[in-house]
């Protein structure tokens, strides 16, 4: 499941950034990948749809959120956490 989450999140981010999956590295930030605030909100929507989870994210203050979006690996970890607690 863990690998599946990683694979799927990278796929979503790659699609949003219009990049190949191989070009999305774990260390990269969304900014590095050229994803703007609209792209971020769309990515979060796609993640919620893909995993049937609620991501605690408020676009008014993206950094002050329990959902860490500082890098691709941080997003994957946060999604894994939400998937694990999914009822």
């Amino acid at each position, binding site marked *: 499941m863990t690998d599946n989450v990683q694979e799927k999140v990278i796929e979503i981010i790659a699609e949003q950034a219009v990049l190949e999956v191989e070009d999305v590295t774990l260390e990269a930030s969304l900014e590095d990948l050229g994803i703007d605030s609209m792209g971020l*909100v*769309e990515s979060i*929507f796609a993640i919620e749809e893909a995993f049937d989870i609620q991501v605690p994210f408020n676009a008014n203050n993206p950094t002050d959120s329990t959902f860490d979006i500082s890098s691709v690996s941080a997003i994957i970890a946060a999604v894994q956490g939400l998937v694990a607690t999914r009822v």
Partner: protein
Amino acid sequence: MKRVVITGQGTINALGPDVAATKEAMREGRCGISSLEIRDVERLAVQIGGQIKGYEPEALFNRQQISLYDRFTQFTLIAAREAIGQSGLEFHGDLAVQSGVVLGTSGGGMQTLDENYRSVYEDGKNRVHPFVVPKLMNNAAASHVSMEFNLKGPSFTVATACASSNHAMGQAFSMIRSGMAQVMVTGGSESMLCFGGVKAWEGLRVMSKQACRPFSATRDGMVQGEGAAVFVFEDYDHARARGAEILAEVIGFAMTSDAADIVMPSKQGAARAIAGALQDAKIAPEKIGYINAHGTGTAANDKVECAAVADVFGHHADDLMISSTKSMHGHLIGGTGAVELLACVMALTDGVIAPTIGYEEPDPECALDVVPNEAREANVDAVLSNAFAFGGLNAVIALQKAP
């Protein structure tokens, strides 16, 4: 006061994906109304419309754009690209800040509303795509045109139901005339041919199940259409200085309110708008050779409109031509005045009067020359375009040949 000319026009509607195809269809009196191809059409009592068939947005917009552009915005951008392309204008520096975009629409992003209401009400989903609001808002089309072409001056959307486009073009005209703007991109768009959009109109019981037959004694209602038309209105001195090709001159505009009934039209309100446009244009009624009618094909509109024209023009009402092109492209609601202005420009530039097709039998209450069924060659110097909206809001625009 500045003079205002038209230096570009563009469209997509049921008659064709551009101005050339639309004019050809109007010359041939071709009908763009056909069986609706939409989800749940079998649950509709009305199953015809002026729908744009074979439309492939993927060929014109990328994935990110499609996720942000409702169908009415896509239509607007297609028409705007053609119009601005024809004008040859590029908006930089001072011209960009002195140019804007005013568009008409009634329903705005109704396809987006329909799809997402389905999703949350019918499918029981608790989450919608993040761009639902920026996609459905009525000003989305005007904003995307401003962004694509760098139009930084006065820009907004007008919503007056079936008169939206005429009111929008009237605003654009006034702004250039007063010196507030150099160039205005204007017109309108509508995309209401979705289950909810057609179902709502069905409720009023004014829709035809067969055809739109304006002025014919056999008419039995209106038929919805979809699409957009966009024009470039430009300060005449600016257009002349750059050697632009001028299609026509906008010479007058008037708007009135019936202040009477939310759906029934008033002869007095319509007549005041027609007379007002002539007065604003400072031309004698006898100069008008053609009127593009509001001509919805409903019992109420067509007889009231003919009576209003007879009142304003007196004996000359029998000499002028008046046709309703809604018989071909359907009623585009908030976009209709814009598509109909194409027929007005065609009359001035090509000397061809678009017909009222589907005409079967004279109605003594509509006893004017409605150019039945076949286009006609005629040399006209000045024309009017009528729009009379639900809510009793009337807007009439006057054009003449290029100076």
